[in-house]
């Protein structure tokens, strides 16, 4: 081996911010290779995947709509991830948020008023946090692994939503289709820009990202989360209450995912369906990492991830590619990021001594 790997004396700041870019570029290159292997013209595919979806105002609106749940959930998850609390359960927390929020939209179907939307959002927040409190409780009391518990609760939540939409929350006049009534106007987030579907929820999501930034970068608890993630023992010695941090870490993810669930049903969907998320809860994990667990970075990476979703839809329509391509891109992006992150702590150098010997 002519290349020598050696640890850096301190983590490289430059690599920390460069590695998401490297990952995005590598993902793009791999994507183009996959496209050409599938017999598509790479330039055409690139255009259909990454340019076409956002070349008009409507497209930009769609991008922001898709990015909203991702940035919101990504920020919420980052709070826990910073403290090495691995909440993989945003998908389920989102579903429970949608159930709670949707419930109020349905029972107040015959009413109108400004109280309905805030009530739905608050209910969604409570629902998401309740769902996230299960792993928090089990981890703090029984030391049960939160990765597994959150993962399992995803299935329970998604099945619960399907069960309710097939049963009690089904539209009685819906010809037996598994869906709720279409929400009344008071339960739908208003569209802000004419000619797009851009709705108020986008600003709520941005507000959430800013709130996350204040909490993580400016508050003492946010700082404690960071320290606990780097060195749990040191944090305990310093008198930080790790159990409190576990609760905060998991609940913030649940809060964000629960609200995101309401934004989906009160936004683009407009009713409760058996499935209300195309995997936003999982994608948000990648968003959080690509965004360096920093709300600013998460905002940017949520736009990239949203573009992957839109590109998947556009590729399906224009290139006859399955929308599953989105998942491939998501996976690749994460691999490349994790690989590039290696360069934060290690450097590669040509091993000159070996070169000379050879």
């Amino acid at each position: 081996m002519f290349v020598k790997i050696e640890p850096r004396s301190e983590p490289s700041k430059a690599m920390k911010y460069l590695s998401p870019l490297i990952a995005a570029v590598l993902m793009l290159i791999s994507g183009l290779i996959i496209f050409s292997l599938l017999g598509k013209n790479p330039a055409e595919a690139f255009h259909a995947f990454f340019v076409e979806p956002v070349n008009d105002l409507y497209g930009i609106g769609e991008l922001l709509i898709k990015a909203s749940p991702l940035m919101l959930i990504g920020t919420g998850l980052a709070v826990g991830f910073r403290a090495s609390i691995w909440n993989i359960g945003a998908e389920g927390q989102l579903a429970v948020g949608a159930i709670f929020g949707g419930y109020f939209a349905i029972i107040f179907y015959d009413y109108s008023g400004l109280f309905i939307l805030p009530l739905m959002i608050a209910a969604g927040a409570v629902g998401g946090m309740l769902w996230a409190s299960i792993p928090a409780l089990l981890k703090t009391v029984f030391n049960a692994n939160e990765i597994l518990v959150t993962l399992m609760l995803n299935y329970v939540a998604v099945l619960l939503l399907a069960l309710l939409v097939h049963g009690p929350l089904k539209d009685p006049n819906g010809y037996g289709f598994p869906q709720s009534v279409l929400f009344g106007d008071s339960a739908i987030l208003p569209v802000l820009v004419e000619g797009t579907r851009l709705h108020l929820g986008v600003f709520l999501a941005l507000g959430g990202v800013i709130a996350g930034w204040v909490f993580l970068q400016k508050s003492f608890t946010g700082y404690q989360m960071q320290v606990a993630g780097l060195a749990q023992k040191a944090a305990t010695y310093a008198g930080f209450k790790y159990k409190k941090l576990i609760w905060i870490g998991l609940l913030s993810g649940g809060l964000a995912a629960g609200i995101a669930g309401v934004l989906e049903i009160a936004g683009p969907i407009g009713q409760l369906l058996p499935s209300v998320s195309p995997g936003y809860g999982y994608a948000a994990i990648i968003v959080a990492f690509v965004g360096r667990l920093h709300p600013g970075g998460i905002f940017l990476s949520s736009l990239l991830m949203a573009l992957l979703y839109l590109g998947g839809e556009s590729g399906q329509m224009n290139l006859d590619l399955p929308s599953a391509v989105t998942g491939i891109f998501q996976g690749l992006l994460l691999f490349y990021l994790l690989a590039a992150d290696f360069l934060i702590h290690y450097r590669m150098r040509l091993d000159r001594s070996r070169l000379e010997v050879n």
Partner: protein
Amino acid sequence: MSDSFAVMIVVATIASGIRLATPFLLASLGEALGQRSGVLNLGVDGVMLLGAFGAYYTVLQTSNPYYGLLVGISIGLLIGLFYGFITLNLRAEQGVSGIGIYLFGLGMSDLFFQKFVGTPRPILPFMPLDIPVLSGLPVVGEMLFQHSIIVYIAFGLVPLMSFVLHRTTYGLNIRAIGENPEAADSLGVSVMATRYSAIIIGNGLAGLAGAALAIELGIFQQNLTNAMGFIAIALVYFGAWSPKGVMIGSLVFGMVQSIVLQCKTFGVIPRSASDLAAMAPAVITILALVIVAKRFKQPSALTKPYVRGG
């Protein structure tokens, strides 16, 4: 209902429970091996899907289910190599990198399926392999000894893995590295090589599990596994990292599924109840996690990358 009819149903239910338990068992044995060496792989479901597609496509082309199994394993072994590189050489966070494998596998298997197959076509499933003499036994014969080869392989792996883990140097090394890699390293055991081998074999078993599923069902479709890979991970905790425990867990899950299927066939339970039953594996798993967390300790070095002198 006559007695003999009842016996027939019970026998059929148990036999189908054993068949349904097989993919769970293969995948969770593989995951247990990896975790014993200190590496968590959350990507099992993605590996299973790729293995399932590979096997399905191979059988579609060759009409030979055994080639399908080989392709399934090979795909798993390759992903294992890749996962080892990411988590061992690059020391990526294990709780997260597996999600990447999952999303990648979910997308890639669907892409391949739509590109190379398109409309679902059934493939030749396994022929049952009756064990001579034993398969002729009343009741027990049909229950245990009239299965396809993959069922015998999966259950045969249980004692084999117990033996390897507890009676061989290699097994001792794996357990030592999962608990205390520093100590094992100082005794001259290569942490890297041992973990690589465990992950590669583990993922190979996940690929085999996917292949077994696709060939048993005789079809492939988008998200064929429907989260079975995640349940398999949970079964490792359920079974407290022992091959026997994992087997018991797999059987419980297989039986629950089989009973639900039978009830559906006979229309005994309404739709909502079968939805509730579908939640059972996840709920049981969470309960098991709580109990296991109290009683058993996970391998101490699980998810921790090993850095010499670090």
